[in-house]
């Protein structure tokens, strides 16, 4: 299929969508699904069917995450006559109220409809009189929405993740069409480099530079791998992107492949994300059927194909060399770098590995241009970052904010403070590889460098808020337990060191700690950091070190309270 045909498809879909007076979007992302969105969307559809309204009056659309996961299931109504309205906590009753309010009830065309339909019509009539729907409406001018800037998630929550046409109608694959027709691989890499995009997997390596490394390798075979092994407990940005807008990630991947000269690509997805696996597989299949993947992509002489590989429950496989081993069907143990995957990756061939969010950033950058993108963010960290906001906050969910926003804005404005009587204590970023940031540093602008300075990392984007009820030594122990469990066992400092750190923490928590244990713990953490083989071991002590730095008195209290009497 050529680009023109694709544009025609997009045009057709746009026209089809515009015909509807109103469209009702129901989030079917994992968080909302577990809150009962499956029942909600069925109820919406049943209610719409029962209305028996005019053709092109209303359409119920399944879509992705709208952000405020803690209030799910979320439903958005886009009516031609007014502003879009988002409803929260939509159960079956509320969904009937919504339809009753927005959709005019049509006359029964056929008197012999089933009793079920009659019953629903009765319920809808009653629902129209019921009050309280206003309380479910979310204020889209509230800081939770107003403070966000959506680039990566722009179409998430608007497109049907299972429909290629819908993505096309939202401008999908136009970036791919543009680069294939108008840009050389070198120009693409330069564009990405100029945009200032840095790897969203955690370390923040400049993406354009990485692309150039792979592009310059001389090899007949090269690979692109999208790292969707989002293992940080408390993070689910990548899952959302793969589930809710798989084509955007796929488009980024195809552009990357064209830029570096790869002909085959893999999505490596966590086994715990069956819906993401399913949606990406479906996206690949549809793309292949429509000539976006396979031989002669969009009628050009560029060939590219992609497949999915499923992880099997190993956090360390997020590390790129371990990931390579896992794709090759081996134990996911990291190896020493160099050689970097850009020179010797999958089966010894040059391989580009980028995180899901990084790939999802590519189409907007190509569409908007490097200059537009690099105006967002701070001097060294450009663009936006998606965070999974979780823990003790009123508003939890998925947010996208410009780099450089302060933690205070995220927590108090977007997150709307800690609920109840408890007080904010720390913000944990970067999961088991990150650290805890206390209240006095809340005005730090969030970017790669600043978080590093605070002994934490950007990580993939988990942001867990802890309130005063959590004991920091115990929290550090929780992460160390995770690292012990997830260490691959290859290098000594990580295999044995994490166990010894955990033992020391247990000793302190159990009240058997001695004054010199704190120094011992700190020294051991530095040893493990300095001598471990891969990123997992090198960053495993971060939660302990950062809590020792900012909450040392909690450790000291545990030790001194047990002094012999």
């Amino acid at each position, binding site marked *: 299929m050529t680009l023109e045909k694709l544009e025609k498809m997009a045009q057709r879909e746009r026209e089809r969508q515009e015909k509807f007076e109103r469209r009702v979007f129901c989030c079917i992302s994992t968080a909302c699904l577990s809150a009962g969105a499956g029942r909600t969307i069925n109820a919406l559809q049943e209610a719409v069917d029962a209305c028996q309204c005019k053709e092109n009056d209303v359409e119920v659309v399944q879509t992705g995450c709208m952000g405020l996961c803690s209030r799910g299931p979320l439903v958005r109504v886009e009516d031609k006559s007014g502003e879009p309205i988002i409803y929260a906590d939509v159960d079956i009753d509320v969904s009937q109220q919504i339809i009753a309010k927005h959709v005019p009830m049509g006359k029964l065309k056929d008197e012999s409809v089933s009793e079920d339909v009659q019953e629903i019509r009765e319920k809808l009539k009653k629902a129209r009189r019921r009050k309280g729907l206003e309380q479910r409406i979310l204020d889209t001018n509230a800081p939770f929405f107003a403070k966000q800037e959506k680039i990566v998630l722009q179409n998430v929550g608007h497109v049907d993740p299972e429909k290629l046409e819908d993505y096309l109608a939202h401008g999908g694959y136009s970036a791919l069409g543009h680069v294939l027709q108008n840009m050389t691989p070198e120009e693409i890499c330069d564009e990405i480099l100029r945009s200032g995009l840095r790897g969203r997997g955690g370390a923040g390596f400049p993406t354009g530079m990485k692309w150039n490394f792979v592009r310059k390798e001389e090899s007949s075979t090269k690979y692109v791998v999208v790292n969707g092994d989002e293992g940080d407990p408390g993070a689910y940005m990548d899952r959302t992107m793969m589930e809710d807008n798989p084509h955007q990630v796929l488009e980024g991947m195809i552009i990357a492949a064209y830029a570096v000269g790869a002909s085959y690509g893999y999505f490596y997805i966590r086994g715990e994300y069956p819906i993401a696996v399913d949606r990406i597989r479906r996206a690949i299949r549809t793309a292949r059927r429509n000539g976006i993947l396979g031989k002669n992509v969009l009628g050009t002489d560029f060939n590219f194909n992609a497949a999915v590989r499923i992880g099997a429950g*190993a956090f360390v496989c997020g590390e790129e060399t371990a990931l390579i081993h896992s794709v090759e069907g081996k134990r996911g143990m990291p190896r020493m770098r160099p050689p970097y995957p850009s020179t010797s990756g999958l089966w010894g061939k040059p391989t580009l590995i980028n995180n899901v969010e990084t790939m999802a950033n590519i189409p907007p950058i190509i569409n908007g241009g490097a200059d537009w993108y690099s105006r967002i963010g701070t001097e060294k960290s450009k663009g936006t970052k998606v965070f999974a906001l979780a823990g003790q906050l009123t508003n939890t969910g998925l947010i996208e904010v410009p780099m450089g926003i302060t933690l205070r804005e995220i927590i108090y404005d977007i997150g709307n403070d800690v609920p109840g009587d408890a007080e904010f204590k720390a913000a944990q970023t970067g999961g088991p590889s990150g650290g805890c940031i206390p209240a006095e540093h809340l005005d730090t602008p969030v970017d790669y460098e600043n978080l590093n300075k605070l002994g934490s990392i950007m990580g993939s984007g988990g942001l867990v808020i802890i309130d005063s009820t959590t004991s920091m030594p115990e929290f550090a122990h929780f992460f160390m337990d995770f690292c012990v469990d997830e260490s691959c066992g290859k290098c*000594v400092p990580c295999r*044995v060191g994490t166990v*010894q750190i955990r033992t020391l923490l247990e000793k302190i928590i159990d009240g058997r700690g001695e004054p010199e244990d704190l120094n011992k713990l700190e020294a051991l953490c530095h040893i493990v950091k300095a001598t471990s083989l891969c990123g997992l071991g090198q960053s495993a002590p971060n939660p302990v070190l950062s809590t020792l730095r900012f909450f040392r008195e909690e450790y000291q209290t545990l030790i001194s309270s047990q002094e012999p009497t």
Partner: protein
Amino acid sequence: MITLTIDEKKIEAPPGTHVLQVALANGIEIPHLCYHPELSVSGGCRLCIVEVEGYPEPVPSCGLACTDGLVITTHGERLHELRKNVLDLLISDHPLDCLICEKAGDCLLQQYAYEYGIKETTYTPTISSTLYQDDNPFFIRDHQYCILCGLCVRICDEIVGVHAIDFAKRGFESNIATPYDGPMIESTCVFCGNCVQVCPTAALMPVSRKNKGREWELDRKTTICGYCGVGCQLEYALKEGEIVYAQASPDGPVNGELLCTKGRYGWDFAHSPERLTRPLIRRDLAYELGLSSEAWEQPDTSPLAVKQPKIEDDFIAVDWETALDLVASRLAATVSEHGPDSVMGLSSARCTNEENYLFQKFIRVGIGTNNVDHCARL
């Protein structure tokens, strides 16, 4: 050639080599537990870390490719501290029973602990695996001593090509395992014992080694393996003249550090009372030749029917001169009486190429027949 500087010494190295390899070749010692020149690089033990100019943190030298102008420091205060701490961690997961351990004196971990002055671990001793497997007659697997360097796994996979063992589980709980931790005999193991040889600790020990004394009590005898014509060099460790175990020596020109199961474990015949050490002549023949004064007749009963036949019942020992003369004269008589084709020569795979060449030459030219063959064809 690449020129790099190691400890202020300019060293030339061929392209594609690694720093540790080059340092060792130039007599610069860097401690290492998981590196072996014949095997792929692992980088897990973290002892061979060195400081590289321009790098913020020390890096392991085993996987560091030599590049032009590289400046390396192999020893220093920080490196010493880091290595000592890594060893400390290793020892926290290793029994400190060197007093009764047969590997003492040959154990690399013990040697480094000595060099870095570690008496005991400063951490809480925690043994990760206490599995003890003595399921075969050749070697014992005692997992508490295992430091998971993976040399055994790599030699089994990369050189022997059997892949009988691999890492199982992960993290602190991981161990080197046969499938389902089953007996070795049920795995694909061929019992070549090369894993035992590369094991730096007492995790893999020959069964024959048990209770047979300490390393420094043993004498060493280098010899050539007699099992086949390859001519592997091997080294017997002896106590009071008796073999305790066999191993290959790294500088063996033919086999390096490798041996097969016969060379490594098939030496128990050496001390067998049934071993033939001198030529024997049948008693009736000896009487005929005047070598014995006793007349003797072969008994009617089949030798197969006799339980545990005693050699001295049927044979007497003679010197080599006599034996060779007897064989030569009998052979000559047979050839002259029945012609050369009445003789056939069958030689052995245990002889060298040169010996086999001489033997066929002797049969073809000396005897004059082409009736010559070799056991390896059977």
